[in-house]
């Protein structure tokens, strides 16, 4: 990737709610090997079981997270939209996607390289801590939402 391209991605990341206010040097560091990606409707960002090497910062559109198996239809359990991040399997071994991610609207995301992220977070603990302070609420919120789904609030 050319330097100006990386710089543009870093700028776009700084405007993303998840990364807003982060140390500029950190954003620049994790922008290495990042890519600007666009997805048409029904195009997949991730497939369950495949290598999960990316963290998506969603800029536009809507992504459906789907779980399924051969003996039952796939079920969408959550949608992710602008300002949100998608994917934590890049952080958690064995780094395999746990679900399918499919665009249900034309979507635009910045795909951050998992290797670069892990290396940057490991070698700069201060950045690593701040990242986790932001990332954990995302996971906690999704856990809470899953618990509410388990409550089946519309049950008869």
């Amino acid at each position, binding site marked *: 990737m050319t330097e100006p391209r990386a710089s543009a991605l870093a700028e776009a990341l700084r405007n993303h709610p998840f990364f807003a206010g982060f140390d500029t040097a950190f954003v620049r560091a994790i922008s290495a090997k990042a890519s600007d990606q666009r997805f048409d409707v029904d195009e997949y960002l991730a497939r369950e079981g495949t290598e999960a090497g990316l963290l998506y910062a969603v800029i536009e559109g809507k992504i459906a997270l789907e779980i399924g198996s051969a003996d039952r239809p796939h079920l969408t359990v959550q949608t992710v939209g602008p300002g949100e991040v998608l994917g934590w399997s890049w952080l958690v071994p064995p780094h395999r996607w746990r679900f399918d991610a499919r665009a249900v609207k034309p979507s635009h995301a910045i795909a951050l390289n998992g290797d670069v992220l892990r290396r940057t977070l490991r070698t700069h603990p201060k950045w690593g801590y701040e990242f986790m302070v932001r990332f954990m609420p995302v996971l906690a919120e999704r856990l809470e939402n899953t618990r509410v*789904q388990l409550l089946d609030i*519309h049950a008869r």
Partner: protein
Amino acid sequence: MLADQPRAPAHAETMGHPFAPIPYTVRSVVLETPDTTTLVVEPHGDQRIPSSRPGQFVMLYAFGVGEVPIGVAGGNAEGQLIHTVRSAGKVTQALTHLTPGDTVGIRGPYGHGWPVANARGGDVVVVAGGLGMPPLREVVYELFRHRDSFGRVEIVYGARTPKDLVYYNEIQSWRRRDDVRLQVTVDAAGREWYGDVGVVTTRIPDCRFDPPKTTAFVCGPEIMMKLTAQALVERGVKPESTWISMERNMKCAIGLCGHCQFGPSFVCRDGPVFCYRDLAPLLAVREV
């Protein structure tokens, strides 16, 4: 409740005996979901129930089977009424099997409705879960009729699956208005659904309103209302500006029998719409 909350005088609603239903004829039937039906009914003769206000309920009588409390989803000057009923027991099963020309008994309307007038001058958020949409439908049209009197209007509608959404086409028509923001979400969906997926509470952070100047009207299953009200208050909406509609085992509908007691209140007489500020402590108590 508040002094200026709409209320119908309990005994004066029904002409004659307080428990005598007035016959209505089923004009049309719409199958909303496999187990939920919308009935449009009109007075059988000269007698009709008084006009209802958004959020009030009536007792619908399936002759020979029994009667149940059902929210008023709409009506017109000619006395037509709209009721949406889910088949969940003998009476509601009978009501959902009515066909045009059949007769149904109605008495009411009863209870306190939504204090829509209190919301004038500020933003409004309407949150419906599943069959919580019918009691809020008239609130939405009241907001539309007096749109200039309110600030931003947000409507959030959640259901278990896309198949459980009622008034689907009608609600899609609301999306075409540029003075209302609509979010529809379901708890889970198949691949044919291209809308939002996530419990209704997940949409609250995305709502655009000025919290201290916002009035919220929330209707749905009790756990949904509790979690939604909490999410709204966390965003800064005042508990005294948050309203929920309770459902209990209403039998007499006029505050006599006590079947619908909820703490110190009778839901039929003191509700069904309550201020969240007053109800929040009770919502945390088991088996009230």
